[in-house]
């Protein structure tokens, strides 16, 4: 029965861990927005303004743009 017991405890602790992580994430989301580090809501515009020529919402540092920068 040892493994069953272990399973029970693992389930219990992982559920707690997940709840803590998830709710920690909620706190993180709101706090970083309050501090002005991030603006999550503007990311919603990625779907609306999705022309290939339009400026990225979250300005990119991908390889492509670095190349552009060099020019």
């Amino acid at each position, binding site marked *: 029965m040892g*493994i*069953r017991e*272990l*399973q029970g405890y*693992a*389930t219990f602790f*992982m559920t707690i861990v*997940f709840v803590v992580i998830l709710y*920690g*994430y909620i706190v*993180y*989301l709101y706090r*970083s927005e309050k501090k002005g580090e991030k603006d999550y809501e503007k990311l919603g515009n990625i779907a609306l303004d999705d022309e290939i020529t339009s400026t990225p919402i979250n300005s990119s540092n991908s390889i492509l743009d670095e190349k552009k920068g060099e020019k």
Partner: protein
Amino acid sequence: MFHWLEKNPFFFAVGVFLVIAFAGLVEILPNFAEASRPVTGLRPYTVLELAGKEVYKKDNCIACHSQLIRPFKSETDRYGEYSLSGEYAYDRPFLWGSKRTGPDLHRVGNYRTTEWHENHMWQPNSVVPGSIMPAYKHQFTNVADIETAYAEAVTVKNIFKTPYGDDIKAGKKAWEAYRPKVLAEARKIASQMKNKDVKDMVKAGKVPEVVALIAYLNSLGAKRYNAKK
């Protein structure tokens, strides 16, 4: 920590994978060893029964019939003792089904006979008036693939240590030597049947699908583990 996860698609993917993999690990693994032990006295399926199981799979009986009797009085009254995990130890794959358009079959061998099955597979309405099950007349002429069934027996014996006798071995020669045993078993069932084509085919050394299927159905229930004690 969260910033880092959001920024990097690779670590994000790893995170997602860990979350979904862990749940499976905790849910499934601990039951594994325990659930695979057979109940005492259970014998593996014979080659003919395995061929019948293939017919059961091929014509997909599982679409309408379960093989899982739940521990409720209404079910044990209707179908017999409830099912035990160890009874399925030699079932690869498991054939519990998920829908009962027709009745459960886990103990059908206890209360149905070869003649009944023969009539039923030929014309379900003739034994169960009002039945919506289709007739499976093609099973009376199609030949069951006993060689593949034998190959399966060899495989589960060698790889999964299913307790078959020493006469089940890999290779064409061993199969040729074993073949008469399967045919003898088939003749026994055919002798209780009345369909002439079936009898002729068995005489000619071929096993019609319906014979294999009936062998399999008869094995479901007590016959497979009380007999050999």
